[in-house]
């Protein structure tokens, strides 16, 4: 029977298939761990006197609560928040006690968990990948089945390298046509979520396909898969191709030599078979998309940047969202005052994102009313950006160039917008209070974010770069 990409990976990882009474036991190839969702899981191991079954399949880093403030004279990143310091110290202890490799704060390979997995070549086609973090869907860009889990499940994977899972449904999203210049992968995924809704993918694993997806670079594909969870999907995936293999070749953890040849042969077979049916299918015409921006308090509330806040549907949720955002139906977003621009997060803080932002900011100044934060996704991204002089572009424009981490995406580490302030952010969630209590977020691409930083209001980057 023809199988979808999802079916193939699922079937290959079944330790025990689903029965009428029990869920499937699914083997996990790679388990990524970070400081916020793991301490209680390690405590469960200690309570039960258990070891980590496969420490070599486990990798930890710290990203969520870590500061992104500049290093001290000693080259270290100071952690001043005692709670964050305790969480960071706990992860260090846990990794030491259980033999788990850790990319610690300040080390060369530290960064946002979903940025470092791919850049180190840990993320590979055909794998099952989990992490106590919903944006684990990012790794699906490589043709892996990757999804977020809760802390109890983190403990399950640490102890058994397996998870209990019921088989999700599959949703095919075909993106036809090509994105126009100035329209990015971020706009594509915001357009998709606006179309299917924030619950539109619930219970499903999305497979993205079609010419507009094939044309994307790996970093762009990661941006798309990253936000699958914002449509409620468990995971998002893209079948691997030459773009994937070229990205992976020579990465520190990618197979080398003969093993590479074998892996490649294997990976090339990872595709949805002709005639395999997904449970649902949606088509979107990428060539009709404009740069997108959100106006509400979930990522599905997005419109083309030159558009208006849509009429209220009369539902309490929409009224509440507009009230919180201080916007009204029919209002144009272009030209709306902003206070902060955040360029960062696992959605848009890889090198290509920073290059795009820099292409707008080069030789320009950030408006006086705007605070611009540029937070690279990893130490490695930071080093590469600095080697190209991007840090200077951001600094000379008047922006802040920070250490790597989640930063203002989740506002756990002190980087936050203030009550009532408006921010254009390249992150993935515009939830109430997400970027700081009372803060109001417009989600957009790095191009839009950079153009808005210059204008001091929401701006269309196509007017600046053309």
């Amino acid at each position: 029977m023809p199988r979808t990409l999802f079916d193939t990976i699922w079937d290959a990882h079944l330790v025990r298939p689903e029965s009428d009474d029990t869920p499937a036991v699914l083997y996990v190839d790679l388990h990524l761990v970070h400081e916020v969702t793991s301490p209680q899981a390690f405590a469960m191991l200690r309570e039960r006197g258990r070891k980590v079954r496969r420490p070599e399949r486990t990798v930890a880093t710290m990203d969520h609560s870590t500061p992104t403030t500049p290093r001290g004279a000693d080259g270290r990143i100071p952690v001043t928040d005692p709670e964050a310091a305790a969480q960071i110290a706990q992860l260090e202890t846990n990794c030491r006690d259980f033999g788990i490799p850790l990319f610690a704060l300040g080390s060369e390979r530290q960064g946002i968990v979903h940025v470092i997995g791919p850049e180190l070549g840990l993320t590979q086609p055909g794998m099952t990948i989990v992490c106590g973090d919903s944006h684990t869907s990012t790794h699906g860009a490589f043709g892996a089945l990757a999804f977020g889990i809760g802390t109890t499940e983190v403990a399950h994977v640490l102890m058994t390298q397996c998870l209990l899972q019921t088989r999700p449904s599959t949703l095919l999203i075909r993106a036809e046509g090509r994105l126009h210049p100035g329209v990015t992968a971020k706009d594509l995924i915001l357009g998709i979520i606006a179309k299917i809704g924030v619950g539109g993918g619930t219970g499903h694993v999305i497979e993205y396909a079609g010419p507009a997806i094939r044309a994307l670079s790996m970093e762009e594909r990661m941006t798309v898969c990253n936000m699958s969870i914002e449509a409620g999907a468990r995971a998002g995936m893209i079948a691997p191709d030459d773009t994937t293999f070229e990205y992976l070749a020579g990465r520190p953890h990618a197979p080398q030599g003969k093993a590479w040849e074998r892996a490649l042969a294997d990976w090339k077979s990872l595709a949805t078979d002709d005639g395999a049916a997904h449970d649902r299918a949606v088509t979107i015409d990428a060539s009709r998309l404009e740069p997108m921006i959100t106006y509400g308090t979930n990522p599905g509330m997005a419109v083309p940047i030159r558009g208006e806040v849509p009429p209220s549907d009369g539902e309490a949720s929409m009224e509440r969202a507009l009230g919180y955002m201080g916007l009204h139906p029919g209002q144009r977003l272009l030209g709306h005052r902003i206070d902060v621009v955040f360029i960062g997060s696992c959605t848009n803080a890889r090198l290509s994102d920073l290059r795009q932002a820099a292409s707008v900011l080069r030789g320009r100044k950030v408006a006086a009313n705007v605070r611009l934060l540029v937070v690279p996704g990893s130490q490695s991204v930071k080093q590469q950006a600095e080697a190209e002089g991007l840090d200077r572009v951001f600094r000379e424009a008047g922006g802040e160039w920070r250490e790597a981490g989640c930063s203002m995406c989740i506002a756990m580490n002190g980087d936050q917008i203030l009550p009532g302030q408006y921010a254009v952010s390249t992150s993935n969630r515009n939830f109430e209070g997400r970027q700081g209590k009372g803060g109001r977020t417009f989600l957009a691409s790095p191009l839009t974010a950079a153009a808005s930083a210059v204008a001091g209001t929401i701006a269309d980057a196509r007017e600046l770069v053309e």
Partner: protein
Amino acid sequence: MIRTITSTYVVLPIDNIDTDIIIPARFLKVTGKAGLGRHLFANWRYAEDGSPRPEFVINRPEAAAARVLVAGDNFGCGSSREHAPWALADFGFRAVVSTSFASIFRNNCLKNGILPIAVEPAFHRKMVAAAGAPAAAGPPPTVTIDLETRTISLADGTSATFPIEPFPRYCLLNGLDELSFLLQQEEAIEAYERRAGGG
């Protein structure tokens, strides 16, 4: 162990309540689970000065005894933080009723003894309407949830069945930990690892 829950309920009928609303990220800098109930819905529940907003539903006196929360569609969307069900459980909730739940949140609830009960929109509207009646009209409405029969019944006798997978239901009914089952799979896991070419 959960068999039936009979309790008054309170309603928060807003769609797409995300996990950042259930518990904001600034309260996740903990290494334990205890006491998170005080941060439940923190941004909606407390005023700027930290004092409780008396009108917010879980601050009202009737919420103290309520074990069931009725919330809007797509409840628990957003992050995988298990702190969300920990906070709900610590506050005292044993079930959440909605028209749908986000997948990771739903999973996390089942692992923490909170029943995610999905009902049809009409049934949901009925529950919300019953709670919306002026307080003077009588005591807060009650609900009974029977996990054995997978039914949810209202005081007026109407009832509905709700979906729940057999395995978590069995575990919850018998007070078993899903982990024990997983740990029993050791042989199959080893066999898989041999098949797949080892670790």
